[in-house]
C-alpha cells in the first residue's frame, strides 16, 4: 500500500512559473511525539537522524522550524506530505 501522489490542476500550475523560493515550516504541537516528527522528517526528506532530530528539537523548543525550501510546487507537495502525516505544516515566502 502506498499513498497516492496528487496531480496538480494545470490552471494552478500556470500561475506559478516563478523561481521564487518557498519555505516549508513545521510548527510545534502538543500531541505529536518528538520521535514521530523526527521519523517523518527523515523519511520524507531523507535527512540524517541527527539533522531530523535537530530540526524536531528546534520545532519543540522555539515553536517552529523551516524544514525545507524550494519552488512553490515542490513546497506544496512537501506540505501535503507533512499534512498526510498529521504534522502542523505551513508555507511562507
Amino acid at each position, binding site marked *: 500500500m502506498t499513498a497516492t501522489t*496528487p496531480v496538480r490542476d494545470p490552471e*494552478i500550475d500556470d500561475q506559478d512559473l516563478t523561481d521564487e523560493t518557498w519555505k516549508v515550516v513545521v510548527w510545534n504541537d502538543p500531541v505529536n511525539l518528538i520521535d514521530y516528527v523526527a521519523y517523518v522528517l527523515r523519511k520524507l526528506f531523507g535527512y540524517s537522524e541527527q539533522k531530523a532530530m535537530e530540526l524536531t528539537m528546534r520545532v519543540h523548543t522555539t515553536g517552529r522550524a523551516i524544514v525545507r525550501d524550494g519552488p512553490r510546487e515542490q513546497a506544496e507537495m512537501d*506540505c501535503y506530505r507533512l*499534512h498526510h502525516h498529521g504534522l502542523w505544516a505551513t508555507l511562507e515566502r
Partner: protein
Amino acid sequence: MTGPFRRRGDRIEIRLAEHEIQFLSQLPRLLETVGAVSGDPAADRLDVPAYLDDPEAEEEYRRWIRGELDEARAADRSAFVELVEAAQTGTSASEPEAEAFLRVLAEARLVLAARMGIEVEDDYEGLAEPDAAVLDYLGALQTLLIRELSA
C-alpha cells in the same frame, strides 16, 4: 517477540493481544466521524491550513489536496484494519504498510487529543486519567513501531 512489533528483514512482524485488537479496531470508525458534526475540533486539527495569510492560495491548495488526502487517509485506515485483524495470530507488514499503521496511530492521537480539548503543551501535561492513558498507549505503540522501522 517481546513487544508488538519486530523487524525481520525488510518486514515488520506485528502481534497484538485480543484486548488490544478490540480497542485498535475501533480507531478507523472513530476517524470516520471527524467533521461529521460542525465545530468538531478534530476536523480543524487534521486540516490545518498551508497558507496562513492568503485565503485564495489556501483555497487552491485545499481544492488540490482534498480528494487526495481523503483517499490517502482511507488507504491508511484500510491497511491498518487488515493488519490489526491479522495481528492476533501474528502477521507481517511491508514498510509502507507499517508506515500507514503509524500514520493512523498519529491521526487517532490528534483526533482524540483535539476532542479532549488539548490545544497547548499545558493542556497535555494537565490531562486527567484515563484520557492521558489512552494517548500514552497509542504513543507507546508509535514509539515501539518507529524503533523497529528504524532498526
